[in-house]
């Protein structure tokens, strides 16, 4: 069997990495649900969760336990298989994107083996992210349709049209960035943003493409269906939205997938615009400490940035009121797409005429 020629050491290494990333994103998503409630409480001058453990720190565990022990109801007139498939797809697409994020720089083991903290360095990394994001809508759509409930169906249709509309602006805003980096590989994009300052200007892409970031961030909010764009689950109009008929852990999967999505999309945005694991004076730090410690520092820096981004998402959610549906569509098609196109044209012109090769 030639199958055995596959490098088993590599597979084991990647399996460990995948497990760590998966567990990490589940853990962060768990505590994001806690943080969301705590942040909203602080912003509204309340105490927030404080019963389970100190500062309510055990709340996510209690939540999970509760969801597992709830009775599971599958509606009588639902399409059973697709009803079960819905939350599975939502969870699958949420966790898949983390495969292409470089979580830290490579480091060399004592045996001379180079370990990469990225599951897959594919040369179309960012397109892979887009592919997975565009599939993410199936979980919501199929679940909403299969529940055989008017509110669920309306909500899933809203979710789908919102996702499709904002994917366009997101893609165009990214084209401007990709014209500057000249590469689709996330590893390459992070490497280009090394340090903080190079050639007399900031090296992070945010300072080169601020408009692009604003558009990308807005679209990410809409893709995640977070407030102010949480029309698919807007409780004043649709009861609970597409997960109306779901109970027990299936409901938990939907709610949880949203937080995993938030974590992964924050990581992607940090990677694209805020230099990934790069930080100021990193060369001096790298010269001073042992390489494995340096990698650990880089990972911590990346996670800190990601947590800041997640907090920013939460501040927005608890500050802005919800859009109306026609306002949402108008913003997407009439403001963001033209803005992204203009941004792209200007970037192209600047690269063509002003940047000396």
């Amino acid at each position, binding site marked *: 069997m*030639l*199958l055995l*020629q*596959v490098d088993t050491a590599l597979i084991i290494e990647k399996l460990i990495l995948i497990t760590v990333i998966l567990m990490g994103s589940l853990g962060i998503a768990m505590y994001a649900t806690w943080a969301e409630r705590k942040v909203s409480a602080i912003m509204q001058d309340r105490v927030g969760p404080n019963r389970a453990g100190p500062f309510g720190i055990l709340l996510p565990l209690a939540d999970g336990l509760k969801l597992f022990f709830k009775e599971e109801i599958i509606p009588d007139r639902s*399409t059973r298989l*697709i009803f079960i498939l819905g939350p599975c797809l939502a969870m699958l697409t949420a966790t898949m994107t983390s495969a292409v994020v470089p979580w830290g720089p490579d480091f060399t083991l004592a045996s001379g083996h180079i370990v990469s903290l990225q599951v897959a360095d*594919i*040369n*179309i990394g960012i*397109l*892979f992210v*887009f*592919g997975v*994001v*565009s*599939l993410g*809508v*199936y979980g919501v*759509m*199929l679940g909403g*349709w299969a529940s055989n409930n008017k509110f669920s*169906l309306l909500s*899933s*249709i809203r979710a*789908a*049209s919102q*996702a*499709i509309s904002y*994917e366009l602006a997101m893609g165009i805003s990214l084209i401007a960035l990709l014209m500057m980096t000249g590469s*689709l590989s996330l590893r390459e994009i992070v490497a280009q943003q090394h340090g903080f300052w190079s050639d007399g200007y900031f090296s992070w892409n945010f300072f080169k493409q601020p408009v692009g970031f604003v558009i990308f961030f807005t679209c990410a909010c809409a893709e995640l269906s977070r407030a102010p764009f949480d029309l698919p689950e807007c409780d004043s109009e649709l009861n609970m939205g597409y997960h109306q008929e779901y109970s027990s852990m299936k409901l938990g999967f939907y709610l949880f997938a949203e937080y995993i999505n938030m974590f992964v999309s924050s990581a992607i945005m940090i990677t694209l615009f805020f230099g990934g694991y790069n930080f100021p004076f990193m060369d001096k730090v790298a010269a001073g400490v042992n390489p494995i410690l340096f990698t650990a520092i880089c990972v911590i820096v990346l996670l800190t940035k990601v947590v800041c981004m997640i907090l920013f998402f939460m501040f927005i959610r608890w500050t802005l009121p919800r859009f109306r549906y026609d306002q949402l569509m108008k913003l997407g098609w009439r403001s963001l797409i033209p803005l992204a196109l203009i941004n792209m044209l200007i970037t192209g012109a600047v690269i063509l005429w002003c940047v000396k090769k």
Partner: protein
Amino acid sequence: MDIYDMLFWILSAIAVSCALGVILSRNPVTSVMFLILTFFAISGHYILMNAQFLAIVNIIVYAGAIMVLFLFVIMLMNLNADVEPQKGQLVQLAGVISGGVLFLVVLAAIKTAAPQPIEKTSTDIGLITNLGKVLFTKYVLPFEISSVLFLSAMIGAVVIGKKEEIPNIQRGE
């Protein structure tokens, strides 16, 4: 048989069986999902041919956008197996005959065509840099013309979908 061949046969089996699932399943939503799986299998073939860009664009455009619109329309139409009108015997017979004739023609065409084996992974035209360079130098004219074609289709859709001016009778003008 190396790993390339194995993957090829597995992907082909998935693609063909899912394509059969598209036409054999009664529920239109199931059909759509089989079609999505078929696209995935085809993308797998693209990756085997080292055309990663094509593979991912196939998923983004077809599986991610076009099939979502398909699903959208099917959900809004609320098709059920028992409400769907059954075709008459004559129509079924006509379908069988025309399908058989098409099959015959395709079979005849394939029989005379010289088989051209695809080179395994030695070509890297499918990588994004090479593909971009070819599209914007050698094939720039057909590429631009096809984009004009899409633009005209888009404008056509807008014209058809535009609201008709309804004369305001109530105002009595």
